[in-house]
């Protein structure tokens, strides 16, 4: 793979099975308040 370097990322497909606990922070509880960003919240699922 000399021409392609893959960055380590969470597998979204797999997270269908091990995600969805809902314990993570609501995005507007941080600094948003006037936009929606869901990708920058931390996952707080201990069982993933």
């Amino acid at each position: 793979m000399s021409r392609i370097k893959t960055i380590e990322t969470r597998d979204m497909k797999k997270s269908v099975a091990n995600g969805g606990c809902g314990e993570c922070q609501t995005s507007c509880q941080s600094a948003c308040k006037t936009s929606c960003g869901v990708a920058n919240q931390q996952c707080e699922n201990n069982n993933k």
Partner: protein
Amino acid sequence: MVHQYKLNGYNIVLDTCSGSVHAVDEVAYDIIAMYENSDSEQIVTAMLEKYADCPDITREEILECIDDVTALKEQGKLFTKDEYENLAFDYKNNSKVIKAMCLHIAHTCNLNCSYCFASQGKYQGDRALMSFETGKQAFDFLIANSGSRRNLEVDFFGGEPLMNFEVVKQLVGYARSVEKEHNKNFRFTLTTNGVLLDDDIIEYLNKEMSNVVLSLDGRKEIHDHFRVDYHGNGSYDKILPKFKELVEKREGKNYYMRGTFTHNNTDFTKDIFHMADLGFKELSMEPVVCPPDDPYALTEEDLPVLFEQYEILAREMVRRKKAGDGFTFYHYMLDLANGPCIYKRITGCGSGTEYMAVTPWGDLYPCHQFVGDEKYLLGNIWDGVKNTEVQDEFRYCNAYARSECKDCWAKLYCSGGCAANSYHATGSVMGVYKYGCELFKKRIECAVMMKVAEAEE
């Protein structure tokens, strides 16, 4: 869905449905662009022609790269199919819990900022302070409707919440006294303009608030243009020493210096760097939300300037981090390896369903940006949500609810965007605030580029 772009010398390929990120060279970048619509021979011919001046790019090299792309596809890291649509609707339909509240503890403010979306804290209504009894009922309502969710979040918001600080303290005390028996963990945030901060309040906030949001627009002349008291005096000199003291004593707990930029400071990176140079390290800067005919509203002509600003910011953050003097920017905080699951990515902010705003007199609205708009009154903290028609509108909001988002690569990063922005831009929460989309996409491209830059080190 695959999104390819070039930024800061990097060729980046996002496979949005798997969440994969690839940094590639020019040849791989071109091969990936052709891969789904061409056979191997067509790709080889095109590449040999394009790179005719590069003797090291041979037929074998190109075929090897095509094999690598095929392997990534088979591993589920490229050209991953989008199969989340039903999941998005089902998850929100089945979830009936409330886990977060924006508690409007004070509908009044000691500053008179003309750009305030909350109209100087009054939200188009009268000035008001929340009583302890109303706040207590709000906490009871949240606990009763939170199901098995353990982490519950309450943001003390306004107006200026420190104008009702005694009630904030009483409510935090109440929440702490009941959280264990209900197996809950309250996390508090308070957003303040800083005017009323003193040593005692700073000590209290640093003890009890898991996050504080401190409003600072950057350079003194920028900050003082809007953030003035009722005599027209700028607040910068008054609040800055207090913010510095608060952050110095924060001992690692989260905070955000949060600014707003407008048409008046489209060079907003100077304001971010100003905050960083003052020693603040957790920064946020949001585009102003206002009617398009306001003199400080962002314009179409501003857009390319803002794009460039976000790129300048990303490059400078990479540089400062390498130099050991880094800072964070809210919209660039991506955790690619341990970030949110697909449910978070597709269901959005939860406004109107798992997140609601509570007015000083106990009315419920989908979020703080709808407060004062009677059409969006959901109910109240004593009787619960009665306006299920409006709530269903928000329950329907997700990454797949808007036809405009169907082919957008960014939908799993914004989840369809902010319902309030959509409403204010189009008159419907199901609309699309295209200006915001453009800024959002640029921010994500920059944020991912920074991750690639880190990985390249």
